[in-house]
């Protein structure tokens, strides 16, 4: 089974701190995603990476950056944490879409999430 591991289950940080959320997947997937999940708002895409060192902004990238130096690892960085970044953060991965697979839609594999509280 594919495993997507997020380094922390719960995290409490102070306003202004730099925060690193780490995600590792073990299935050699090309695509990796960072979402945040807030009640009533569903999952919103922060950043997407389609290959090593390649990234694409999602719907809500402001206040965040990402790093993908190795295929299996995708890091989300909060440059200066603010209280409105208190949320559940979910990492996901899936195979890349090349050839035949470009015609179908591959499912996402999610990590267990990191509940971040910024005080």
């Amino acid at each position, binding site marked *: 089974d594919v495993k*997507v591991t997020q380094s922390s289950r719960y995290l409490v940080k102070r306003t202004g701190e730099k925060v690193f959320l780490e995600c590792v997947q073990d299935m050699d997937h090309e695509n990796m995603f960072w979402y945040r999940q807030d009640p009533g708002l569903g999952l919103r*895409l922060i950043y997407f990476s389609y290959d090593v060192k390649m990234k694409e902004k999602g719907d809500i990238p402001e206040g965040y950056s990402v790093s993908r130096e190795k295929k299996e690892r995708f890091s989300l960085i909060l440059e200066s944490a603010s209280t409105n970044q208190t949320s559940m953060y979910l990492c*996901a991965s899936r195979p890349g*879409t090349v050839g035949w697979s470009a015609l*179908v*839609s591959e*499912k996402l594999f999610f*990590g267990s999430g990191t509940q971040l509280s910024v005080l």
Partner: protein
Amino acid sequence: EDQVTQSPEALRLQEGESSSLNCSYTVSGLRGLFWYRQDPGKGPEFLFTLYSAGEEKEKERLKATLTKKESFLHITAPKPEDSATYLCAVHRYSSASKIIFGSGTRLSIRP
């Protein structure tokens, strides 16, 4: 604008009481529609992918169907362990990353 709307927001059923969850979508060029299950404090877990109108998929007490404007997740004779939030998501052709999620339906099954 692409949109995914799930209803109801919350649903409480008695064990054995069948019902349906709705996912209405507007998206330009549907590549796939997904259903996920999410337990409290965990990440979503994949259930089904549907690609074209008329398609149906089943897994245990769950059956997902798709039309050109909506999808239904039918739950037959549910058990308490089916209690979870069910998420619908759509993937459109124009973007590898553009997967739009609904806000989910919280399903609670009473014994």
